[in-house]
């Protein structure tokens, strides 16, 4: 009930916002803030009351929905989802605050769409019915399309449609795979979309779902769907465009939550449901056995090098996201507790850190109206607080120990090394390059002589600091005491690794 309430409160908020008159903008903003704060409170309650000692799902609700297809409104949370739900709920109000001043037109529609988006995201992480899962997955598409397309930058139309097309393409493959899973889950009448049931069935010897051949191609179907979202190498090109064009808050959501939907799906569906499939792609034998890790490696190195080449601040951050998601993939490919924990932690941390980075880019953009890295210089003197926070975010992102980015990255790599020595070692190139582009950016923007054009650039204001502080605190806290997050999902991860039948591999 609590969970359902949390999911649908933003939807209710959307209706309320739609009913408000268009002119009363302040009211609309406040109402939206309120309706994003409620899920946050509820998410915190869930987070606190979540029983960390079991891997099972909690707070589950299962109500028959479309009985003809045995589709249930089945939601629940385990450690993995509650973490991401907290992230989503946290970013909600932050994004509303970040949109407070810089959305000039159509604030009502903007806020309404944003609330719809939040419902989609929250629902996605809580869904335990494959169909519901898919519906929520897709539900985020349309609001996102409009949010980028209407409130975005100069090439927003292109970026929006590109985003839309890519994601739809991916989800189409996912849909086929999903239907195949459903149809193979039993005889007519006993078919099911229930994720826990399907996981059990897929692990039952002799069941149609457990057939390796079947699992491999279904795995691929889901994988491509999620890969577009993550995004994984050949499917990534929508991301920089979408990020560059999207308004700040939407970039934050995009990087903070939407990308996580892809990796979350990989964990929740691909790994848990298709152990044979994941085994085929990550058993370390031959090309296919290394393919997933290879993709992770490519993401890391490719994303980092692309980031290095960027001169647009936001694009740089966008490419860095690609690189960082590569660590998630690499960690997942390891399939051991260390790697998977690292990957999940990295998901959460990247959500926090990239949100910070995009917010920071937004702060600068709002003042200077451009994002050309070479166009700045010496801002460190002019905006010391901003510089400080940016340095913190950069350092977190480049994996400085003591900040959260490090823990996930390190665990992913440690886990992956057990299995993919060469690829993991090569992936560490990403660490150096990551440091390189962030430091270089830091230098070009903040160090050196102050560019005389920006002598009057105002310092970051209180509202902006307010959006950044919670994220910064999380970054530091999780860097110092990651157990805080890890204890939420360590049981789930243990269960997951058991499902995948892999023990901690050693050299």
């Amino acid at each position: 009930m609590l969970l359902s309430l949390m999911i649908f409160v933003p939807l209710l908020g959307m209706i309320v916002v739609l009913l408000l008159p268009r002119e009363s903008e302040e009211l609309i903003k406040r109402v939206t803030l309120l309706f994003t704060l409620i899920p946050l409170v509820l998410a915190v309650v869930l987070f606190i009351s979540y029983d960390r000692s079991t891997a099972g799902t909690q707070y589950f609700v299962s109500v028959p929905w479309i009985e003809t297809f045995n589709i249930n409104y089945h939601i629940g949370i385990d450690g993995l989802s509650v973490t991401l739900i907290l992230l989503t709920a946290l970013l909600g109000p932050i994004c509303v605050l970040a949109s407070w001043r810089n959305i000039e037109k159509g604030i009502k529609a903007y806020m309404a769409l944003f609330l719809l988006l939040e419902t989609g995201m929250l629902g996605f992480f809580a869904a335990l019915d494959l169909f519901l899962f898919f519906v929520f997955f897709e539900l985020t598409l349309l609001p996102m399309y409009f949010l980028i397309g209407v409130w975005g930058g100069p090439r927003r139309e292109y970026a929006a449609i590109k985003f839309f097309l890519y994601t739809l393409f991916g989800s189409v493959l996912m849909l086929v795979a999903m239907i195949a899973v459903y149809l193979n889950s039993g005889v007519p009448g006993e078919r099911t979309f229930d994720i826990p049931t399907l996981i059990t069935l897929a692990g039952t010897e002799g069941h149609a779902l457990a057939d390796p051949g079947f699992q491999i191609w279904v795995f691929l179907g889901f994988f491509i769907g999620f890969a577009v979202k993550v995004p994984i190498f050949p499917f990534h090109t929508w991301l920089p465009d979408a990020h560059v064009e999207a308004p700040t808050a939407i970039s934050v959501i995009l990087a903070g939550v939407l990308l996580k939907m892809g990796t979350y799906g990989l964990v929740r569906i691909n790994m848990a449901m298709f152990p044979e499939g994941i085994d085929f792609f990550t058993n370390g034998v031959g090309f296919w056995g290394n393919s997933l890790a290879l993709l992770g490696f490519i993401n890391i190195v490719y994303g980092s090098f692309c980031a290095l080449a960027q001169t647009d601040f936001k694009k740089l951050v966008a490419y860095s996201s690609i690189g960082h998601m590569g660590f998630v993939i690499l960690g997942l490919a390891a399939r051991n507790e260390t790697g998977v924990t690292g990957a999940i932690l990295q998901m959460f941390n990247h959500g926090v850190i990239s949100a910070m980075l995009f917010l920071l880019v937004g702060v600068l953009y709002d003042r200077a109206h451009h994002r050309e890295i070479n166009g700045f210089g010496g801002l460190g003197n002019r905006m010391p607080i901003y510089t400080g926070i940016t340095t913190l975010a950069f350092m977190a992102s480049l994996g400085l120990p003591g900040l959260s980015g490090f823990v996930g990255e390190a665990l992913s790599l440690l886990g992956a090394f057990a299995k993919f020595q060469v690829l993991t070692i090569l992936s560490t190139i990403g660490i150096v390059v990551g440091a390189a582009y962030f430091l270089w950016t830091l230098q070009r923007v903040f160090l050196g002589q102050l560019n005389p054009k920006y002598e009057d650039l105002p310092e970051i204001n209180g509202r902006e600091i307010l959006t950044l502080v919670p994220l910064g605190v999380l970054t530091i806290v999780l860097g110092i005491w990651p157990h805080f997050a890890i204890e939420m999902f360590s049981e789930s991860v243990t269960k997951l690794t058991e499902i995948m039948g892999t023990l901690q591999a050693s050299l």
Partner: protein
Amino acid sequence: MVVSLISIILLCPLAAFAIFALLGLAKRNFPRQDYLSTAAMLVALVCSFLLLWEVVPKPEPHTVDWISLGKITFSMGFYLDSVTVIMLIVVTLVSSLVHIFSIGYMHGDPRYPRFFAYLSLFSFSMLFLVVSDNLLGIYIGWELVGLCSYLLIGFWFEKDSAANACKKAFLTTRVGDVGMFIGMMMLFARFDTLSLYGDNGIFTRITNPEYLTADASGIFWLSIAGVLIFCGAVGKSAQVPLHTWLPDAMEGPTPVSALIHAATMVAAGVYLTARMFPILTPSSSLVIAYVGGITALVAATIAIVRFDIKRVLAYSTVSQLGYMMLAIGAGSYVAGLFHLTTHAFFKALLFLGSGSVIHAFHAMHAHHDEEHANGEEHKHDDHSLVHAHGSEIPSDQDMRNMGGLRRKMPWTFGTMLVATLSISGVPFIFSGFWSKDKILGGVLGRAMEWNSVHHYVLFGMALLAAGITAFYMFRLIFMTFFGEPRNQEMHDMAHESPWVMVVPLLVLAILSFPVVNKWWFNKDNIIRPEQPHIHAPQHAQLGPDTKIDGANFGIAFFGISETEAAEEEGEKNTKKADDAYYIHKLAHNIAMVLSIVVAGVGILLSWLFYHRRRFSAESVATTFRPAYNLFWNKYYFDEFYDGVLVALTVWKSRLFAKFDLSAIDGIVNGVATITRQVFAAFIGFFDNRVVDGIVNRVAEVTWAAGGRIRRIQTGAIQTYLFVVLGGIVLIILIFRAL
């Protein structure tokens, strides 16, 4: 008690920084950040001394589970043995003194409070590194000190050279860190833990004789892991080939150079290598020894030709660090640590002294900065990532502008002279002599014991480096404090520094005498570190060349004579150890004599060149032009990195970006064309979707297909009828064939 003391030591500086950061968010500064930070450091210092009495014979790690994942646990904790406590004292002591010095030195800087906050953060990180009982914790501290180093080198970030230098420092050390991380991964993959001590720790496990029998490839892996972890030290301790950042790091304020780039952070690499000593196999040890030896020699030769007072000291630091590495690589890790300690004090002293000199020109300095800001056009260098080496020497650091300062700055001169004597290895009353001698003796002993050519070569390098060190250090002294002032204007302006700066110099000067060390490291207080090690018999099996000797384990520490240590060895070990004892004793004596000789020669030459001017340095430089050029250009390391590595990286990233823009699109385009031709009837659509989703291209192809279909829709009804009836015929014909 231990935990709470260490907690206080760690938390004090951290709190000092946190207060600064939190107030900073509210756009405020604590008015007396300097006192706050200094006080925090002093508290830590006191606690460090208190810890001396807490060290127990069998140290146990104090840990908490940091991350626990089912079967695997990453713990965080402290490990307190004598090495730790010595390091703690060194760090807190030097740090406190630098804090005090900075109150005077940094006075009037616009970011004065921030400087102290950074220093506090650095102290915290360094202390954390020192006390950590596991590799992960060490790595965390390791990176954090890197961050602080970055922040402090770039403290005057308006200067492009500083901005470049700080970035270079961070990046270069990160390259090494990645190596270290890979090494950690290898260890983790083998042991499922990164803890070093405790029942399940790596050290405990490898000392188990069963370890190597159970795992045939163990030694091989361990060698690689050892070298990789040493990579981290190569980066941090500025060993060849990653040493280039350290001279550039002199762009930071001088107290920073003293604290971070002389006494503590750069020594962390040595500390780490010493800590990891138990896992170092003979082959990895040899690598370490060579890297150290080469570094010692290369850096020393470069230092001869520098004119920037700070750069000379920087290269000297590199060289001395190489010494320490050499010691560890040769198995005399105690000697290495001993040198670390003595070096920390006298090198910090040298830096602070040079800072004092520079401070003397402070007015000049400010004046120049202003000129610099106004006169030079501000521009960014887009192409270079590690581009800091080309900077000009600031006039206030150029030794060619100095001279005859000993009368103007007697305290500074006196203290610096003590330090110089110490580093040059002037015998018996200076600590540097003892530690350096111990290294030389250790290396020679190893060479004689094993009859190993490698170690003879290494000994030769070390000896040569020792001579050169004496030469260039006295060159510095002569050029700075003796002779006639070369720049009268600046000379007139110079003055002795205020007492806050002089007092630290004095304290450090006192610490450069071995008596003091003896007083601290009284035998009764010191517990010998019980370092476990890979079980020796296993090494024996690997052949004589890879054999490692147990003689250095459980040796006494500072102030305890070699004899005493050897006696204990003798008690413990068999006859073989007796041989080793005598060999080492002999080697020690030979080395002592040789080191005194080379130091004397170095000082003498220096005196002849730079004080008596009996020879002209210029003419020698002309005579040995190629060598001079090599030294002057720092063996072209920077050029190499810039020219090859950096260009390659930038080129690669550009390529990737281009690839993203054109190549993938191009591939899609090409595939689209082929597909269109192959499946012309199928309108080249379906496969493009599968191949890739680059929207533009696919859209174009689909669009073109749409346009093609449009053309069939001519508007003439009979065309339509043709399609219908032709379609019917086609369907029938096709399906009839099926």
